């Protein structure tokens, strides 16, 4: 399996290298769909210039990346292209290994269940076969590396690629069962963009499951491990933040990075939901609605964790998708991360209901973004409403996609316990209705 992965990596790197040297790289760096004020390369360069001049990189409200990123690029600025390509490669390999491991676990569990004769007899066609699962890790890597969204994001040198790499490493270390590394990478991801904070719950659930500790609030072992993981997480977060402080010897980065993410002062259009809404809003409602909008990202963690506590990896997928939909400065790079997981759920395909509609919407919107941007900004004939309409549609498409997968997952689980061909009490065929 290593050979195809290497081939995919080589193809991906070639495409990126060609695009880096083409004339496409320059305009891509300006696209609002690909870069946001948080992760634009131009801003990183500006921050570096300020740093070199001995000023705080956060003076002047241009640079909003974390101190570690700026110090990383302080040393490798000349090899930035390569760094971004490596980051994408790391993400793909990490996801590949993680999914491979996860599939093994899934298969083992299925085998035990089959041996224990726990599945109803009519749902044998839902049983997953090794043949079908064999190519999934490769498909995941393929989906991530050759997704045009990832390629654009990488060629535009959006630091989103680095965040994705950190999250992918976090997923890998979680699935491999290393609590410490998982906590460290989670802390790093949180440090980068706050929102991965919500991944704490699924990671904890997964590690608990792996150690056969039941989620039971009356069991001391549960609390002990939770505490252990939380301490490791908070400790490493603390270390990273303090390290940043010592690097710059100022706390400037806290308001400039996290304040910037949470209070959304920059209303440059992007593919998210925030900009239009807050551009239109009266100032005195702003605080309230910012709270409402930001709670969106964090709130779904609770019901989803309760519903999916047996399936933490699916929960991770749901969380990443929710983050990329509801975060304050989303870019297409964020979307590409959760899209890479779609092959893992390919066995849910038969239960998906709106996949045709969703793929139509997503593809059409991706084509319409640049068109409406052109009409609005260059031709001056359309206006922001046109662009926001597409943004809205795109996000509705994403939400439909995620909820469709959620529904399909739950439905498969339901069938696995209740049988595939459901009968009503009177013996006629029954259908499941979501209400």
């Amino acid at each position, binding site marked *: 399996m290593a050979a195809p992965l290497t081939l995919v990596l080589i193809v991906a790197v070639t495409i990126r290298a060609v695009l880096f040297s083409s004339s496409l790289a320059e305009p891509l760096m300006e696209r609002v769909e690909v870069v946001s004020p948080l992760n634009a390369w131009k801003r990183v360069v500006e921050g570096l210039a300020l740093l070199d001049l001995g000023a705080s990189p956060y003076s002047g409200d241009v640079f909003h990346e974390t101190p570690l990123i700026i110090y990383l690029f302080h040393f490798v600025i000349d090899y930035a292209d390569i760094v971004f390509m490596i980051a994408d490669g790391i993400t793909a390999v990490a996801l590949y290994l993680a999914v491979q491991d996860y599939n093994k676990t899934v298969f083992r569990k299925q085998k035990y269940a089959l041996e224990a004769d726990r599945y109803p007899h009519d749902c044998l066609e839902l049983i997953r076969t090794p043949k079908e699962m064999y190519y999934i890790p490769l498909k995941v890597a393929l989906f991530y590396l050759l997704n045009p969204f990832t390629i654009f994001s990488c060629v535009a040198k959006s630091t989103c690629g680095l965040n994705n790499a950190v999250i992918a490493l976090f997923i890998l270390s979680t699935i491999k069962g290393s609590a410490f590394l998982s906590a460290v990478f989670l802390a790093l991801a949180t440090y980068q963009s706050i929102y991965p904070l919500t991944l704490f719950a699924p990671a904890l659930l997964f590690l608990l499951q792996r150690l056969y500790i039941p989620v039971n609030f009356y069991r001391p072992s549960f609390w002990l491990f939770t505490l252990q993981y939380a301490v490791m997480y908070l400790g490493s977060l603390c270390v990273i933040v303090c390290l940043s402080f010592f690097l710059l010897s100022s706390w400037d980065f806290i308001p400039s990075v996290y304040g910037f993410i949470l209070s959304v002062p920059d209303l440059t259009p992007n593919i998210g939901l925030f900009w239009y809404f807050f551009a239109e809003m009266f100032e005195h409602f702003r605080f309230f609605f910012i709270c409402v909008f930001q709670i969106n990202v964090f709130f779904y963690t609770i019901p989803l964790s309760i519903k999916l506590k047996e399936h933490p990896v699916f929960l991770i997928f749901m969380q990443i998708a929710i983050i990329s939909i509801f975060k304050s400065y989303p870019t297409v790079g964020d979307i590409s991360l959760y899209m890479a997981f779609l092959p893992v759920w390919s066995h849910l395909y038969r239960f998906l*209901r709106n996949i045709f509609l969703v793929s139509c919407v997503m593809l*059409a919107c991706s*084509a319409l973004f640049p*068109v409406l941007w*052109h009409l609005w900004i260059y031709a*001056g004939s359309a206006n922001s409403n046109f662009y926001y309409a597409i943004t809205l549609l795109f996000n509705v498409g994403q939400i439909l996609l995620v909820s469709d997968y959620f529904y399909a997952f739950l439905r498969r689980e339901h069938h696995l316990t209740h049988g595939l061909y459901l009968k009503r009490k009177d013996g006629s065929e029954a259908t499941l*209705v979501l209400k």
Partner: protein
Amino acid sequence: MGLLSDPNRRRALTNLLTRLNTPLCIVCYLAGVAWFMGLAFEPFTLRTYMSENAMGSTMVEERFLAGERALVTAREFAAQKKKMGGMPVDWLVKAMQARGLEVFTQSFSRTLPFPDENKERYMVHGTNVYGILRAPRAPRTEALVLSAPCTPGSSNNQAVGLLLGLAQYFRGQMYWAKDIIFLVNEHDLIGMQAWLEGYHHTNTTGMSWTPLEGRGGSIQAALSLELSSDIITSLDLVLEGLNGQLPNLDLANLFYAFCQKIGVLCTIQGKLQRNDWDSAAGYSQAVQTMLLMVLKQASGRPWGDHGLFLRYHIEAASIRGINSFRQYKTDLTTVGKLLEGMFRKLNNLLERLHQSYFFYLLPSLSRFVSIGYYMPAFGLLAAILLLRALDLWVQLGSPAPGTEDGLVDGEQPFGPGVLSVLTPLIISHLTGVALYTLPIMAQQTAVEHFPVSETEAVVLTAIAIYTAGLALPHNTHRVLSGEGTEEGWRVLKLIAIFYMAVLLGCTALINFSLGFILALTLVPVAAFITPHVPRVLSALVMVLLSPGSTLLFSIFVYQELQEAPITLLEGWNLFLSVISQGILDHNLYGSLVYPLISLLVYPCWLLLWNILFWK
């Protein structure tokens, strides 16, 4: 969300849509065409009105009286032009200086990719002369432009004369709050392109020009004037710009309002408005006017010198004086008054024209159809594609649960399936790339080997590649060694249909007319084509409805609407020259129609062609 989550209702809807698919498609198509034709019917249109407050409430009194003097200047200019055998730059500079303007010149040169046989030019050298009247009342941050092209021969001298006359008159007025730039450009659009690029410090087309030495503020609006006779009978307003972009409707409203006030006959597309909308003749006049506008807009070329301003976010229109055999005559003084009035209103602007519509069609000058009214016509056509795609999707999905083996069997055809879909996609796009690049690259070789001129070489190469693309399916088959499956063509068709829907949708947003005309011919093809229809007949229909034939038909319709019908041979010659113009427009001004057709629409059509010959 009931519809999306309730499986029973979904199934009912899907069944309905698949069972009634063909009738629904036909109904949609007819409804789309009927809707479009109905747009010209007066009760369905809106009356134009001035949206911009700054131009509405203030009435101005026109005092320009120097029409006769402008005519004298025009004659002097004509004499100088004849003597110089081109643009009399020195004379113009002196004349403008004498009228108290700051005068600058800009020289430019451009070698065309191949000779332009319509205008007989290849290596173009020229000079633009422009004078700036500085605003006495404001800090010179904004400007207006009045331009008149200096064309070879005896045409357009009166426009330059009137421009100089207006310059002299405007100089004496105190109320100007914006700089007014008087521009005489040589070689029409090429000169205009050079001047605009110089003014905005951009170089998008690789032209060489000397930098401008003087500038006004940011240009708010521009009018281009074309007059070729001392007395005119009517004024024609030209709005269609590069890539089908239109200026804000308020500019047309302004023109119309002043024509009404001063009492000048005004036309659009050369068609006078009729008052009897309820008669057949009145409706047909409106339809003809609208169709002319649609055809001109779809061509994506600038139809007057104003066309290039629009790219820089400057509202601009051309005003063309027509001298026909009508009894009603207007002299230059009246035209001057009209321009004075328009400029004074534009001078009052506090911000760019943005209040009114940018997306509209005009069945007459006093009536307009806005985007909300005309988009459904396109939407109905696009709905056919979605209906068809849904049908295909259901067809593709239904046999899959039917097979008992499930996924294990489904995996096998997937491998070659991807290849058999990807190959036509790549080949047809490569053909498109060839169509885009080869005609200009290969002109030298073609000229050496065949007895044709360079222009003919380019056009004929394009047509040859276009035709050669039709041989594509046979080549694809050789690559695949006859692996096409029933499922394969369905997937390919689904992709092609979806591709077309997105492509036409995007096109229609930027240039409605182009999108609509393409949809009118391509959508039926996309809807009915399968490998099982009678092959020869369908191939004929497909060729007749291909993008190239659409262009040919459009030329005939255009000539018919212009009341200048042509024979088949003339039509063919015009077809050739239109192709060369399209390629030139792309190379000179950055018009997007040629790349759009060759790189995207034509490959998409080839995919459908491929489905027809699927084995």
